[in-house]
C-alpha cells in the first residue's frame, strides 16, 4: 500500500501540473529497449570473445582478465535468474555501459541488467522517491558523490564497508582494489565509512582557445592594455581582463564575432549546480582544507565536529558572507557583460556545447564531461590534424581564496545501493557495479568516455598516447594538482532539499529582482531553516544539524578563517601563467 500512496499523494500535490509536465523520464530510452531485445536474439559471446574483441586495451594481461571474469561468472552462479534494473544519467560513459557492458555482463554472468539512462535531475528524484517511500524503484543508482553527506546521515544507503564484510562478502571481487580508485575520498562519509563505488569521474576546469592565446598580435595587444602577459589566468582579475579583452577589444577574429566568456543563466535547476559545485570555493568563501573546507565548506555551511551549525554569517556560516556575495555578483556581471546575449536564456546542457562553435575565447567553469564533444573532427575548435585548438587548465581563483583551499569541482558518479532494495537484487547489482569498474575493462571504458576512475588506468601508456588529443585532460588527472578539485562535501546534510534553494535565489539575483547580498541572505536563511527542521525532527542521529544561536555577524567576521570580512580591494592585479610551463609542471608532478 505504501508505494501506491506516496504516488497518489504526489499526484494530487502536483495534479495542477503533473499531467502536463514535460516527460522525459517515463519511457525507457530507445536504444536501451533495442539492446535488451538484442540480448535475447543473439547468442551470447564467450568470455574470451569479449576480452579479445572489446576489453582492449586493458591494464591487466589476458590471463588476469580471464581470471577476473571467471570470478564474476562463479560469483553470479546463484543469482542467474535475477533481472536487475539500474539507472544513471545520460553520459557517454553510461551509454557505453548500458549498450555494451550490460550485454557483456549478461553473457558472462547470466544476470540480466536493464540499465536506464535519464537526466541527472530525474536520477535524484527517483533516488529520493525510493528513499522516502521505501519502494524499490531501481536496484542500484549511479549518482554524484555530492550526496555523500546526505547518504551518511539519513541511513537509507547501504554502507559498502559493512556490506563487503557481511552480506556481500561472497560477491565482492578480490581484484576490486579499492585503493586504485582516485575518487574514493569523495564517497567516504564523515564517519570514515565508504558509501559509494566510483563509476566515472569528471572535473570542472578552465577552458580556453590555446591557438588564440598564442597569436603574437593578440599577446602584444593584451600586454599593452593590461600590463601583463596573456596566459592562463591564475586569479579572477586576470580572467575578467581577458574576458573584457576578447569581448570588448578584440571583438572579431577571422571575421567571426568572439566572446571572452561563456556561461548560462536560465531559471532552471542547473543554475544552482555551478554554485553548489564550486563557485563560492573558487571565490574563496570557505575555509582551507581538502577535500572541503573545515569548518566552513563551499556551501557556506559551518560544522562543529560533524554537526552542521549554520550557513548564515550570524551562525558562523558563510553563505551570505562578503566572499559569497562577491562570487554571485561576479557571475552576474560577467554573464551580462562578456557572454553572448543568448547565454542568459540557456541551461547547463544547452550552454555546454557552445564553445565548440568557435566563438568563445575562454570559459571559467567548464565540465570535462564535455571533452568527448569537443574533440570531434570537423569542429571549429579542432584543427586539420584532429588536435584540439583548445586546452584545459586550472580554474582561476577569486581574491578571498588562499593556498590550501579547494580550487574547483571534481565529482564522481558512483554506485549507490539502498537498504530498501531486496538483498538478492542488491548483490546482483553490486556484481554489476564491480563489473563495469573492473580492471579488465576500465581502461577501455575510460578511453571511450574520458571519465577516469582508476589510477592504474591513468598511468597506462594508452592514456599517454591519447593525451595530445584530449587538451590536457590526462595531464590534469596525472598531476598532484587534481586533489584541489573536489565535490560537495560532508557538511551538507540534505543535498536535495538544500540544493533546490540555490537556483531560484540565484535566478532572482540574475534578473535583478534581488541584489546579490539579499539573494544570498535569503539563501542562507532558507538553508538554516531546512537544517533547523532536520534538527527538530531528530531524524539524523549521527552528525545531524545543531544550529548555533544567532550572533552579531561582526563577531564571526572578526574570527580567523571563514566567514571572511569584506576585502577593501576585490580586484587585485591580474596574474597569468604560460600554459606550456604549467603543463610542464604537471608532467613533472608539481602543482604549478
Amino acid at each position: 500500500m505504501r508505494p501506491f500512496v506516496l504516488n497518489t499523494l504526489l499526484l494530487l500535490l502536483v495534479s495542477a501540473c503533473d499531467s502536463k509536465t514535460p516527460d522525459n523520464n517515463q519511457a525507457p530510452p530507445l536504444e536501451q529497449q533495442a539492446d535488451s531485445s538484442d540480448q535475447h536474439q543473439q547468442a551470447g559471446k564467450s568470455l574470451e570473445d569479449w576480452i579479445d574483441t572489446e576489453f582492449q586495451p586493458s591494464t591487466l594481461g589476458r590471463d588476469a582478465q580471464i581470471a577476473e571474469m571467471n570470478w564474476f561468472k562463479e560469483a553470479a552462479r546463484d543469482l542467474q535468474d535475477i533481472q536487475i534494473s539500474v539507472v544513471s544519467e545520460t553520459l557517454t560513459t553510461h551509454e557505453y555501459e548500458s549498450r555494451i557492458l550490460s550485454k557483456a555482463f549478461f553473457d558472462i554472468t547470466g544476470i540480466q541488467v536493464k540499465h536506464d539512462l535519464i537526466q541527472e535531475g530525474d536520477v535524484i528524484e527517483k533516488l529520493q522517491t525510493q528513499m522516502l517511500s521505501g519502494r524499490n524503484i531501481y536496484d542500484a543508482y549511479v549518482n554524484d558523490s555530492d550526496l555523500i553527506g546526505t547518504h551518511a546521515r539519513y541511513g537509507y544507503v547501504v554502507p559498502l564497508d559493512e556490506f563487503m564484510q557481511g552480506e556481500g562478502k561472497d560477491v565482492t571481487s578480490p581484484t576490486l582494489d579499492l585503493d586504485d580508485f582516485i575518487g574514493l575520498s569523495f564517497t567516504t562519509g564523515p564517519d570514515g565509512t565508504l558509501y559509494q563505488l566510483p563509476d566515472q569521474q569528471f572535473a570542472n576546469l578552465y577552458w580556453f582557445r590555446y591557438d588564440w592565446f598564442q597569436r603574437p598580435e593578440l599577446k602584444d595587444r593584451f600586454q599593452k592594455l593590461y600590463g601583463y602577459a596573456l596566459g592562463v589566468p591564475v586569479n579572477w582579475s586576470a580572467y575578467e581582463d581577458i574576458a573584457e579583452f576578447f569581448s570588448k577589444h578584440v571583438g572579431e577574429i577571422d571575421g567571426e564575432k568572439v566572446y571572452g566568456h561563456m556561461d548560462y543563466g536560465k531559471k532552471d535547476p542547473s543554475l544552482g549546480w555551478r554554485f553548489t559545485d564550486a563557485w563560492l570555493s573558487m571565490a574563496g568563501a570557505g575555509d582551507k582544507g581538502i577535500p572541503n573546507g573545515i569548518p566552513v565548506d563551499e556551501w557556506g555551511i559551518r560544522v562543529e565536529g560533524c554537526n552542521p551549525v549554520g550557513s548564515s554569517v550570524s551562525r558562523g556560516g558563510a553563505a551570505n558572507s562578503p566572499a559569497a556575495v562577491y562570487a554571485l555578483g561576479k557571475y552576474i556581471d560577467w554573464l551580462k557583460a562578456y557572454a553572448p546575449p543568448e547565454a542568459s536564456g540557456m541551461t547547463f546542457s544547452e550552454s555546454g556545447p557552445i564553445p565548440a562553435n568557435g566563438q568563445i575565447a575562454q570559459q571559467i567553469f567548464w565540465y570535462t564531461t564535455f571533452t568527448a564533444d569537443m574533440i570531434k573532427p570537423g569542429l571549429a575548435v579542432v584543427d586539420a590534424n584532429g588536435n584540439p585548438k583548445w586546452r584545459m587548465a586550472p580554474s582561476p581563483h577569486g581574491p578571498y581564496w588562499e593556498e590550501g583551499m579547494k580550487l574547483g569541482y571534481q565529482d564522481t558518479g558512483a554506485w549507490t545501493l539502498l537498504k530498501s532494495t531486496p538483498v538478492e537484487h542488491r548483490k546482483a547489482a553490486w556484481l554489476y557495479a564491480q563489473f563495469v569498474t573492473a580492471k579488465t575493462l576500465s581502461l577501455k571504458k575510460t578511453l571511450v568516455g574520458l571519465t577516469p576512475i582508476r589510477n592504474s588506468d591513468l598511468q597506462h601508456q594508452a592514456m599517454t598516447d591519447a593525451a595530445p588529443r584530449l587538451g590536457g585532460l590526462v595531464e590534469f588527472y596525472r598531476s598532484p594538482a587534481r586533489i584541489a578539485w573536489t565535490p560537495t562535501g560532508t557538511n551538507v546534510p540534505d543535498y536535495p532539499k538544500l540544493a533546490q534553494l540555490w537556483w531560484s535565489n540565484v535566478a532572482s539575483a540574475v534578473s535583478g529582482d534581488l541584489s546579490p547580498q539579499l539573494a544570498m541572505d535569503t539563501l542562507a536563511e532558507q538553508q538554516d531553516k531546512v537544517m533547523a527542521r532536520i534538527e527538530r525532527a531528530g531524524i539524523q542521529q549521527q552528525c545531524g544539524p545543531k544550529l548555533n544561536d544567532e550572533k552579531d555577524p561582526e563577531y564571526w567576521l572578526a574570527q580567523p578563517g571563514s566567514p571572511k570580512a569584506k576585502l577593501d580591494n576585490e580586484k587585485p592585479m591580474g596574474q597569468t601563467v604560460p600554459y606550456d610551463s604549467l603543463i610542464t609542471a604537471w608532467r613533472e608532478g608539481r602543482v604549478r
Partner: protein
Amino acid sequence: MSWMAWTPVTAIFFTAIILAVIVMTLWELKSPTVLRKGLLWFATTRGDRFFMCLLGSAIIHILWIATTDIEPAVATLVCLISAVLVMRYA
C-alpha cells in the same frame, strides 16, 4: 493507515466533518430540503448552505492566519457563528 500519516488533530477534524455529513444526511431523510432564497442572490438547498459553511470556514481561517497572530481557535469560533448564520439566513 500509517501511510496516510494521521495525527490526532486531523483525525478529530475529519471525524467532525464525517459526523456533520451523516447528520446532514439523516436530516435530509427526515425532512427533505426545500430550495430557498435567502440573503444571497441565488436560491440554496440545505446541502448548498452546508457546503458554503465549509468553504467559508476554510477561507476565514486562511485570511485569519494571513493577517493576524491571534490564536486561530478564535477564527474557528467566528466560523461556527457564521456557519449558524449561513444555515439560518442564506
